[in-house]
């Protein structure tokens, strides 16, 4: 019996204990705290001139976009000693098939172009590797302003090649994580739980009947449905909370980009970050992604135009060997970058306060390097590794190669190395006709 067949049956509840055992077998020997993974998408690439650390890993120089990570006054402590800056990560599998530019976010965690069928790293870790088995939420997928299923608007992808829907409303996130949807009183909850369980039993029976008749090609889809039912079941299971419930966020009348939500995005982002950190600290989930919005129409910075997308990122004028570039354009883009990184620093601060920072790996990346060129080469990649990961941190890794440093390293290698940090002994990650992109790991990460 193949692994996927067994997983399918297990998902349908036919071999109930299989998944659990497999997950236990694969996990590294029990450490003090379970490991956690978070990935944050930051928009609009980077102004390289103000993103690259200087001298002895100086990230707080005048104008640096990484400055929030070394700003104890604003974020409680400096996170510089947990940081690895990766310069020269390319979204190569996407470049092979034209999934680049605004579509590049499809590639960040999947290592595949738009035609890929594999799960993104977060979903792989949570579902296939079992990191999400023991928490009420297998994983959570958050966003700000955009909940569409477009290729370029998602970093989390299910096996089969469909995007994982994002929660963009903090009130919904709160309700999902901390609400009591089953009713206020204990007996009401018990009754609702019993009803939910009996409904779920019928759903499972019906899915089994359908799966028995469906062709093999539909199996991935029905398997995913079975996984989803486990998620519903988890919601029905009573969980003793290990931490305080935060106060409920306000309701926002408008939530979407281009739909009038922009003026609220700053507040929404802070709430999403705080809820995400709380979810991890409370062990409600161990895997999460967050898709950030840009500053367009936010009017937060008087020095930025209303349309940051067209008038800042499209007009970034980089310095290269033959061209001095425009420092004014760097500073404007760095302001956008610093804003995004400020939110990541807030996340690190909240994780630190909740005691979860040491056991969490935070990864951030973007769909482009140079946003004016819509280039998916040299996407700005940061890792914040807690002590549990035993990585050599506080350093800048320059992976750019070639005469004009135009070549980089496929992000697939980074994904292999990250998966290994969680005990998944993979040799390759992602899908591409160009197999050479997929294999190998990023050994430099370990200081080799």
């Amino acid at each position, binding site marked *: 019996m193949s692994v996927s067949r067994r997983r399918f049956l297990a998902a349908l509840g036919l071999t109930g204990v299989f998944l659990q055992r497999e997950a236990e077998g694969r996990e590294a020997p029990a450490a003090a705290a379970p490991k956690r993974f978070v990935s944050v998408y930051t928009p609009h690439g980077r102004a390289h001139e103000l993103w690259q650390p200087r001298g002895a890993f100086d990230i707080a120089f005048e104008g640096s976009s990484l400055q929030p990570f070394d700003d104890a006054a604003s974020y409680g402590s400096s996170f510089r000693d947990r940081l690895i800056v990766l310069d020269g990560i390319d979204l190569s599998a996407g*470049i092979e*098939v*034209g999934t*680049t*530019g605004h579509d590049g976010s499809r590639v960040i965690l999947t290592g595949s172009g738009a035609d890929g069928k594999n799960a993104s790293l977060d979903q792989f870790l949570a579902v296939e590797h079992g990191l999400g088995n023991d928490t009420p939420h*297998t994983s959570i*997928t958050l966003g700000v302003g955009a*909940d*569409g*299923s477009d290729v370029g608007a998602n970093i989390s992808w*299910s096996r*089969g090649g*469909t995007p*994982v*829907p*994002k*929660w963009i409303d903090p009130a919904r996130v709160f309700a*999902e994580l901390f609400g009591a949807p089953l009713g206020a009183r204990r007996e009401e909850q018990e009754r609702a739980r*019993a*009803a*939910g369980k*009996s*409904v779920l039993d*019928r*759903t499972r029976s*019906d*899915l089994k*009947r*359908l799966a028995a*008749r*469906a*062709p*093999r*090609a*539909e199996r991935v*889809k*029905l398997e*995913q*449905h079975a*996984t*989803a*039912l486990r*998620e*519903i079941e988890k919601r029905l299971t009573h969980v003793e909370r290990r931490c305080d419930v935060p106060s409920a966020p306000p309701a926002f009348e408008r939530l*979407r*980009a*281009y*739909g*009038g939500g922009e003026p609220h995005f700053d507040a929404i982002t802070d709430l999403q970050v705080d809820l995400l950190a709380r979810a991890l600290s409370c062990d409600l989930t161990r895997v999460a992604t967050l898709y950030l919005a840009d500053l367009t*129409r936010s009017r937060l910075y008087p020095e930025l135009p*209303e*349309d940051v*997308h*067209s008038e800042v990122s*499209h*007009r970034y004028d980089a310095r290269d060997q033959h061209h001095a570039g425009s420092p004014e354009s760097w500073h404007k883009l760095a302001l956008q970058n610093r804003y995004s990184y400020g939110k990541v620093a807030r996340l690190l601060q909240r994780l630190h306060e909740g005691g979860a920072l040491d056991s969490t790996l935070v990864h951030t990346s973007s769909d482009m390097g140079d946003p*004016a*060129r*819509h*280039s998916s080469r040299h996407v700005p990649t940061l890792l914040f590794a807690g002590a549990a990961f035993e990585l050599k941190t506080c350093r800048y890794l320059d992976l750019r190669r070639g005469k004009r440093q135009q070549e980089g390293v496929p992000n697939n290698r980074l994904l292999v190395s990250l998966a290994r940090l969680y005990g998944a002994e993979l040799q390759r990650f992602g899908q591409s006709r160009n197999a050479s992109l997929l294999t190998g790991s990023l050994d430099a990460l370990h200081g080799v």
Partner: protein
Amino acid sequence: MRGTGILVVLAAAALALACSRQGAPAVPRVELPADARLLPTRVRRLTNLELERSVRAVTGVEAELSRELPPDIRQEGYTPNAGQDVSAAWATRYAALVSAISARAAERAGVASCSDFGSQACRAEVVATLGRRALRRPLSADERLDYERLLVENGSGPAALSALLHALLQAPSFLYLSELGRGSAGLGRVVLDDYELASQLAYTLRGGPPDEQLLVAAEAGHLRAAAGRVHEARRLLGQSDTRLQFRRFVLEWLEVDYLLQTAKSSKLFPSYDALKPFMLAETESYVDEVMVHGGASVASLLGSGFASVGPEMARFYGLSSYGPRASLSGTGRVGVLQQASFLASHAHEDVTSPVKRGDFVMRKLLCEKLKRPAELGIEVVMPPPDPRLSNRERLSQHVADPGCASCHLTLDAIGFTFEGFDAMGGKQERDHGKPVDQRADVRLGQAARATVAVRSSAELTQALLKTPVISECFARHAFRYFSAQADPAVEASFLAVREQLASAQRDSLLEVLIAYVASDLFAYREVTAP
């Protein structure tokens, strides 16, 4: 009030279309080549909108489910497709929503025909009735027992009924449209069973579940024969709410269904946000007009010469009157390609996009597949905006580069004819201080021998109307939407069916769909590996 008025007119007109054929219902005789590829056996999760209508039909609760659910997956831009899945986030949200809807429905009178669930007869009655309505077929003995037990487990009264409704609405047999067939028809094919045929008809033509009459026709075995299916199809096409399905198709085909999520520079287009809903409403009303009265052809969509507008859009277009058929004479607008919804959707926030507009015409009207720059190994480098250049002058850079020119010569020329309309679809006479230039020599398809000189997008439309391929191309796109797939081999089978129609019927989307319904392509499936 106006909306209701239109609805009545539509219903009457649609009915006329159905009635005119009474007595001698035309059943197209269409044969499939022996080696024709068919759709595969499959289960397709209904789209959010199809589910919304289905949930309403079962519960009677008017909930706007589709607005609350994570968005549909799209294939080729269309929401009906077999890639639609049930993810954890979708499933948990859906479960919460239908749990609440079920509770509301259970409190209402009339959902169940009896309420004494202590009685076995009542349980059997309720499960059989509601089960058939939800799952669109009679329940098997196993299923009946299972759901009757569910009623017992949940006590009596509304709580038990609510649990039953919730279970039915969450059943995969409700969520997925089954196209698995029964037995074998030889040649690796199966025929859909009676109830699958009923559901196919309903979801294809109305985007919603089968009504009672259709289920009765299925029960009697009437849908096995082409004549029976065509009879029911004409009846469904005569129903007024069938228009919703055609609206949805055209909105997705035209790529304007995202309109409400688009923005324009508030400096340049301060009225855009307020007008967006009216732009969308215009296109919807126009589709109703054209699909019911105008022969349901792409020609009527492109060049009817009237607008279906209220006062807001009439003012925006500078029309002297408004209504379902307001004259567009003298405005430079002739049909759907000059509607603000289309023009605004295919433009940037601040300036027009001849590339996007030209690309739409190439893909959606001429069915030309252009290679994306990455496929040609071209790394796109955007030129910095130069305030001294008009948009057209700036884009001339495309043709200066031989790699880009291969596609952009064709693409941009078509797009330039729309330069008379700005980024939100308003009239534009000057661009960056220079008079706009809408003239172009357009090549309608890469295989076209000659170019045609046109002076505006209205003239481009006239040229397109003389290009036979647009009718076939429109039918191909319609087939992707209405059959929920985009396999070129299956599409070829569909085109073979369409070819057998008389030329006048070939241009009518309604007649083409009737021919599809009559064909084996509709009733049979190719068996894929078990």
